[in-house]
């Protein structure tokens, strides 16, 4: 039943892609059929995943195919289901959103048929990655996902910056794939690539396999310093695609990492440390880089790096809990990390859709050109604010729950000092400190982003003329906003959902947790939800009281940022960079901001100029030198690549003759 539903889902995606590709001449049909097929493909998969989580248990099916090393195996267990649900739901919502978002492309006379074809393949590829039970099939889904998303990033390829971003993405994703290929070659040494047959060769160091998995899947997930493609590709893509890529596609890296670490067996402590430090580094670097950005979508992309860091902190604590033998830390770490996967999918796709709506209505992504949009785009503004609060981990929204679980895992490690496990307390301290720093900086960053974009007065005519987006773009955002709130209030219900998933993961690592630990932990979630509900009630009652008091009185409104000044100008407001300046300056050791400032001179200063930009440190200091060195080393081979057909034939002939003579 469940495999049949999954097959139906994947078949819908793969069958509709060529049909859509053929509709290039018929844009109206494509723009209707595209979202319809995307949503139709998502539904059976969502049903299958919900059935699995509702207690149907793992199911799998194998069909034979003409490729060696196993069969065409797909299956669904709790872990797959937990990843498949956000993947499919976000894909469906982003499809509905993209229909409205692509209207301006259609009005320019560009066909959206290829977009929808790639979009369906992307969704199908992501689903295949989560349900494949054969390494070859997994790789097939992985590559389809990578190539389809590359082509979607290149949708606006007439812009050279987009082309550059696309190439960076393509190179990065294939560096990752190369490591995964090597990993599969090692694990499949016995000849079969079925997941239940994969195993490490005897006497092979598991550490090498772990490093391969970490680099391969970490590139997709976006751990620092493997994240450089993220801030390039996600802003360049159309916003619906950014939502899918940032919200769910990078999570397939987390899924793959977990799935294959389980195959590698019982984790030594240093794996946990690697994940934990990568998590803290990604979180801090990601959020600081986000603080220094002016481009709204780039800022959100850096926040994806930050949140992947938070997920990695959770998983790292979980692995450490297993290897150090602290059950509470193991359970809570995995629970927090996995719940944050779902939560981040919800609020990050929501934020990208919000940013996309702003871009679509104002034509700019530069935060400093916006302002005052809350009066002009009230629904978008409300949705973006909810998403911002959720991503900062504030109650009553969903981000709070998962971060709370990770905090609890860290505390479990701290309190393990009683059991004389110093490593556990060190890990707990590191995670707590890291999370606290990340949370505070994220709050500052979203205060900056939301305040500059939506509050105050418009800084440019573009912003002043903005209107609310239409229903097809509004509806998905409202659905996701509601999801943020519902998950935040559904702490007690989260226990039966997330518990079995974590149990199956821990069982995969061969680590049993008594039911008591889980029970206590998920009690904390209920308490958090109750507190959140109380906060909501309190806020609502305060608001009701305010309206009751003001009902029969005259209220006057003054211009925002008026400060009693007679004629305030929009340029008097804080800009994004001025708001973030103290914090960015404080962390100058981690991020390098370039400032260009011509100081006003003389009594009557004429023109002055001030601008800042923040290049990615790792791209500047690590990748550029390395890749330039490669280029210098290999540029000697350009002599061979001269474009003369005759000599190419000569190369082939010479190679053949050489082989012939060698065998004589």
């Amino acid at each position, binding site marked *: 039943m469940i495999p049949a539903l999954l097959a139906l889902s994947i078949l819908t995606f793969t069958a509709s892609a060529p049909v859509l590709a053929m509709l290039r001449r018929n844009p109206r049909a494509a723009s209707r059929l595209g979202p319809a097929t995307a949503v139709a493909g998502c539904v059976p998969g969502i049903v299958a995943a919900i059935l699995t989580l509702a207690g149907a248990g793992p199911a799998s099916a194998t069909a034979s195919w003409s490729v060696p090393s196993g069969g065409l195996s797909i299956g669904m267990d709790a872990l797959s289901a937990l990843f498949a649900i956000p993947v499919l739901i976000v894909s469906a919502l982003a499809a509905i959103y993209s229909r409205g978002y692509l209207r301006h492309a259609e009005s320019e006379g560009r066909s959206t048929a290829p977009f929808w074809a790639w979009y369906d393949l992307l969704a199908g590829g992501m689903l295949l990655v989560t349900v494949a039970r054969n390494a070859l099939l997994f790789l097939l889904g992985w590559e389809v996902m990578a190539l389809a998303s590359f082509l979607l990033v290149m949708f606006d390829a007439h812009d050279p910056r987009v082309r550059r971003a696309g190439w960076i993405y393509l190179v990065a994703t294939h560096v990752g794939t190369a490591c995964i290929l090597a990993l599969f070659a090692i694990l499949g040494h016995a000849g079969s690539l079925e997941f239940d047959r994969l195993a490490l060769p005897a006497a092979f160091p598991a550490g090498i396999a772990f490093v391969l998995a970490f680099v391969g899947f970490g590139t997709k997930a976006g751990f620092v310093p493997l994240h450089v493609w993220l801030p390039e590709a996600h802003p360049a893509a159309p916003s619906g695609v950014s939502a899918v890529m940032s919200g769910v596609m990078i999570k397939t890296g987390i899924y793959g990492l977990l799935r294959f670490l389980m195959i590698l067996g019982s984790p030594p402590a240093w794996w946990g440390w690697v994940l934990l430090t990568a998590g803290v580094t990604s979180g801090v670097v990601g959020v600081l880089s986000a603080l220094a950005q002016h481009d709204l979508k780039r800022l959100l992309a850096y926040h994806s790096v930050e949140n992947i860091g938070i997920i990695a902190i959770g998983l790292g604590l979980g692995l450490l809990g297993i290897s150090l033998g602290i059950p509470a830390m193991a359970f809570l770490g995995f629970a927090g990390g996995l719940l944050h996967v779902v939560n981040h999918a919800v609020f990050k796709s929501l934020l990208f859709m919000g940013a996309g709506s702003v871009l679509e209505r104002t034509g700019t992504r530069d935060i400093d050109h916006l302002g005052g949009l809350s009066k002009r785009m009230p629904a978008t503004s409300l949705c973006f604010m909810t998403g911002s609060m959720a991503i900062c981990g504030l109650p009553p929204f969903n981000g709070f729950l998962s971060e709370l679980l990770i905090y609890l895992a860290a505390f479990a490690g701290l309190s393990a000092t009683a059991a004389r496990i110093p490593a556990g307390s060190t890990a707990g301290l590191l995670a707590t400190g890291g999370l606290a720093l990340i949370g505070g900086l994220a709050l500052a960053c979203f205060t900056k982003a939301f305040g500059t974009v939506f509050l105050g007065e418009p800084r440019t005519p573009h912003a002043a003329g903005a209107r609310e987006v239409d229903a097809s773009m509004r509806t998905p955002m409202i659905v996701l906003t509601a999801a943020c709130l519902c998950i935040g209030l559904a702490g007690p219900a989260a226990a039966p959902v997330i518990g079995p998933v974590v149990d199956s993961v821990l069982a995969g690592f061969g680590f049993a947790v008594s039911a008591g630990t889980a029970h206590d932990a998920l009690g904390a979630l209920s308490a958090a939800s109750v507190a959140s509900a109380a906060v909501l009630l309190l806020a609502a009652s305060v608001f009701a009281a305010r309206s009751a008091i003001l009902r029969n009185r005259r209220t006057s409104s003054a211009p925002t940022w008026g400060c009693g000044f007679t004629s305030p100008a929009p340029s008097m407001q804080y800009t994004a960079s001025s708001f973030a300046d103290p914090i960015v300056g404080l962390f100058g050791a981690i991020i390098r901001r370039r400032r260009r400032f011509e100081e006003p001179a003389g009594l009557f200063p004429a023109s002055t100029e001030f601008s800042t930009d923040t290049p990615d440190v790792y791209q500047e200091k690590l990748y550029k030198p390395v890749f330039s060195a490669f280029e210098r080393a290999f540029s000697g081979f350009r002599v061979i*690549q*001269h*474009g*003369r*057909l*005759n*000599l190419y*034939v*000569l190369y082939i*002939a010479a190679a053949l003759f050489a082989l*012939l003579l060698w065998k*004589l």
Partner: protein
Amino acid sequence: MLDIVLVALILSNFVLLGSSRLSSCIRTAALQGIMAGLLPLATAGAGLSLRIVALGLAVVALKGFVFPHLLNRALRESATSREVQPFVGYTPSLLAGLLALAASFWLDGRLALPTHSASSILVPVSFSLMFTGIFLLVARRTAVNQVLGYIVLENGIYAFSLAVVRDIPFLVELGVLMDMFVAVFVMGIAIYRINSEFDHIDSDRLSTLKG
């Protein structure tokens, strides 16, 4: 009889290497194709069956008439130079042809292939055809000449398979012919495209396109 045909094949190689006009090259290649098509009839001897005859006639029709016709049309319509425009001059080309012939005989001696052929020089001739074809591909400038190189190369493969497998499996031969047909077809398209894009069919000028 067979040896006469084989020697004629070798001679046609030299004509191809030494002639300076494209149209005469095409004619020579057509003649060579006809001779290659007749080879199975000559080697079969007593075991001449309807199938072999049909196959030979098909090859003759294709290589002797269809391909040359296509190439002539390409030459007419592309209105470019009718000169061969070699990278390697005619005399050096002829010397290279001689070298290739010598190398073919030497190779035949070294390989000691299990041949069933009626003639001892069939294998070296087929080698020399292949070498000549490759040489034409490498050392001539115009696209038409490169197609001719392909055809000569294929003649060599055809003759070689005759030598080794006596009567060629029908499917293999059909496969080779299909291959050829596609090659010429693609080349034809390429010639037209090059011509319409750049007003000439020198494949070497495509090097300006490289990044």
